[in-house]
């Protein structure tokens, strides 16, 4: 009887922890959803802020976030792909691979605010890009480098060895094999990694605090060297700066909802893509 009692008690605990987790997470979405929805409107999505951040919309922040993500991916994708290809296809197994892998894992663990400082010292000051879209985008690019690398590596490793052999046995060179056989087969997995990293970039705030973000701009950024507004930073700024805390809070709810929907949609897409690929090669 005692055994059964322990089991029931234990399982109850496990159940309640899962239930509590889901409850808390969904209540966050619920609160922000309900209060943000009141603010949400076509104007909110398509216009710039007006009257000291108390009216208007967040369009420049949406556009800024989009640009930052674009720069980050354009910068990191080629590097990450090359790195993954080298690790999976070219390099002999051994200390070189291990060394790079441990390095990349550690890069993934560096706090985002430290990336921000690095971006400040290198891009803003040393390379004199100033506080700009370019500096912020590049900083974010370095931040997601390990994310894309590990997704691409996983995708490359999932390509069966047998079709590499088949290609080489036909007299293809290694580069032909990679470009014509391995990369196309790994493409969906790599795509998942890209989507995943876009989700990450869109939500990051700390790296752009001192490299790119502006609280308020009149219009859309004009060049890669101008400052940008970005959704996550805009939420933070609405809560901590400005002179009309009450009205700004409402705006912050709307802004949070937009960011939340954006990020959840992106990561849902990534998860969906990944589910669909499972077992693709089990012929």
């Amino acid at each position, binding site marked *: 009887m005692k055994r059964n009692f322990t089991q029931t008690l234990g399982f109850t605990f496990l159940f309640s922890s899962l239930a509590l987790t889901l409850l808390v997470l969904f209540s966050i979405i619920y609160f922000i959803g309900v209060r943000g929805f009141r603010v949400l409107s076509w104007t909110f999505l398509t216009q710039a802020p007006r009257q000291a951040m108390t009216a208007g919309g967040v369009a420049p922040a949406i556009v800024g976030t989009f640009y930052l993500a674009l720069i980050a991916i354009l910068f990191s994708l080629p590097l990450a792909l090359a790195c993954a290809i080298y690790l999976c296809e070219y390099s002999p197994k051994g200390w070189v691979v291990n060394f790079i892998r441990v390095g990349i894992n550690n890069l993934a663990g560096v706090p985002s605010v430290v990336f921000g400082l690095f971006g400040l010292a290198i891009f803003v000051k040393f390379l004199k890009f100033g506080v700009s879209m370019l500096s912020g985008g590049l900083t974010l690019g370095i931040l997601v480098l390990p994310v894309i690398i590990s997704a691409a590596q996983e995708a490359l490793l999932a390509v069966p060895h047998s*079709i590499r052999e088949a*290609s080489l046995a036909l007299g293809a060179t290694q580069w032909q094999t990679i470009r014509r056989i391995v990369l196309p087969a790994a493409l969906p997995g790599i795509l998942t990694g890209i989507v995943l990293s876009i989700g990450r970039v869109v939500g990051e705030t700390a790296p752009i605090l001192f490299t790119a973000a502006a609280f308020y701009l009149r219009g859309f950024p004009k060049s890669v060297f101008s400052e940008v507004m970005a959704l996550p930073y805009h939420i933070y700024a609405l809560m901590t700066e400005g002179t009309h805390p009450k009205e700004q809070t409402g705006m912050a709810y709307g802004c949070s909802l937009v960011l939340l929907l954006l990020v959840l949609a992106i990561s849902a897409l990534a998860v969906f893509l990944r589910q669909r690929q499972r077992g693709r090669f089990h012929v």
Partner: protein
Amino acid sequence: MFDPVKIKAQHVDFFYGNQQALKDISMDIDVGRVTAIIGPSGCGKSTFIRLLNRMNDLVAHTVLRGHIYLEGQDIFSPAVDPVEIRRRVGMVFQKPNPFPKSIFENIAYGLEVNGYRDRDVIEERVVMSLKKAALWEEVKERLRDSALKLSGGQQQRLCIARCLAVAPEVLLFDEPCASLDPISTAKIEELILELKKDYTIAIVTHNMQQAARVSDRTAFFLLGELVEMGETQHIFTAPKDKRTEAYITGRFG
């Protein structure tokens, strides 16, 4: 003078790390004939055949001693490009391994990487290879379908067709029927007998009946050594070595 020997292995030792997989193998593969390599699992027969087109280059930490000559040229000499060797010596693997592409593209790929550009020539050779591999009738209506939709036996014949398209001189079969049903196996064997007219063939198999059915000469490997080699008829009716006799009469393996 006509040299009947296509591939000549001389005193080949091969190691995976510290483990010796092949011990002092010397044997010839004759032009225009089918040479079968038989032996129990782990005897080194696959390892050996994979040396013949340098597929083992892809495995790390291996050491090779001795020489393998393809028409008198040492294929492991530093001056030789392994890619060139693989163009001349094609290989069909244990498990069918079509590319995740269409049937047509699977075959066209080999041609493209070997420098064919003319679409008409490529199409012509794709059709020819499919016919040679006795697959044409089954797939001619759906060349653009994914190769992964074919049955296992069809996939394997597609892999053979893919091989034939690049016009190799030698075909290596590494247990080509290991994952196929008896009917598909029979088709592949028929095909091998047909291909013998145009190619030099080496086939690794653990199925002795198969070796007896398709081959002209047979080599018996055991624990990394070449125990005996000779005309298939002789090996199966009057083996010289006791170990060969024990194996072919089914006493081990």
